């Protein structure tokens, strides 16, 4: 009743159909938005953490404006490091 060749061709047709619509347009846009957001939070989080560390150290040592300024820039550098690492990771995934 069922011959194997017929099944194979049907399977091939079904597989080619599946491959075509892996990602629709809106799904792609959603994942791009996710990517952009991911990089944004990486950058902002490190700047925030750096500034908070600077603030805490300032109130410990009583060197009011200086450490917060230094750690703000160190945090920005750490944020860029995070972004570069995240971007490298994304390239590896694709």
């Amino acid at each position, binding site marked *: 009743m069922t011959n194997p060749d017929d099944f194979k061709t049907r399977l091939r047709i079904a597989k080619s159909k599946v491959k075509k619509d892996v990602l629709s347009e*809106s*799904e792609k846009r*959603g*994942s791009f*938005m*996710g990517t952009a*957001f*991911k990089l944004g*939070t*990486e950058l*902002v*989080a*490190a700047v*925030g*953490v*750096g500034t908070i*560390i600077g603030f805490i150290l300032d109130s410990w040592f009583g060197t009011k404006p200086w450490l917060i300024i230094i*750690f703000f820039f*160190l*945090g920005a*550098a*750490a*944020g860029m*490091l*995070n972004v570069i690492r995240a971007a490298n*990771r994304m390239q590896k995934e694709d």
Partner: protein
Amino acid sequence: MASNPMQQFNVHKIGPEIKIAGVDLSFTNASLFMVISAGLIILFLFLGTKEKKIVPDKIQLISEMVYNFVAKMISDTAGSKAKPYFPFIFSLFMFVLLCNMVGMLPYAFTVTSHIIITLIMAIFIFIAVTIIGFMKHGFKYLSIFVPSGVPTVLLPLITVIEIISYLSRPVSLSVRLFANMMAGHTMLKVFGGFVVSLGILGGWLPLSFSVALTGLEILVAFLQAYVFAILTCIYLNDALNLHH
């Protein structure tokens, strides 16, 4: 009907107030939806693994797909050494996914749109990963703060930057999930409000936007759960395989 788009994020008590040693432990709508999400996971996996058929039915197929998906994610990002942590990452992924998805239902409360919940999860992961790193490598684990091939002059500066980068992990992990969920739900509510205020004449455009946004939000709900789990795997990988 509430017109304030932020009102959906209000936490309110359900039932009596419970105070133990000065800590407010009352049952809130947040706890209720966490219980619902956890219950749904348990029910789904119970039904999926009840009958171990050779040709699976739909629910068994879905649970096997989820299992394979998480198992593949772990082995791809963290290698075979991370196998013992599969239960943890699987429960984490399922919990975040179900909390996001349950939040998509009308009148539901989105647990993950509160930073305190995502931050607690992220801090727990951060501390656990740090402890695992120290247990596996001892004090050699501190060498992740010292990248190789850096000139000695720059070493103190780079180390400080690396430490800040390490400490920013739980912040970025939690803020990403929280902000995505909160922004999406606020946007849905705002467009829903437009439909009501523009009435039957002008309300069709925001209504169609709302439909499209709902689709996008479901995608974001899945994607954020995936990102949360995969970043946990990546941090675990850094702790298990020290190769800097």
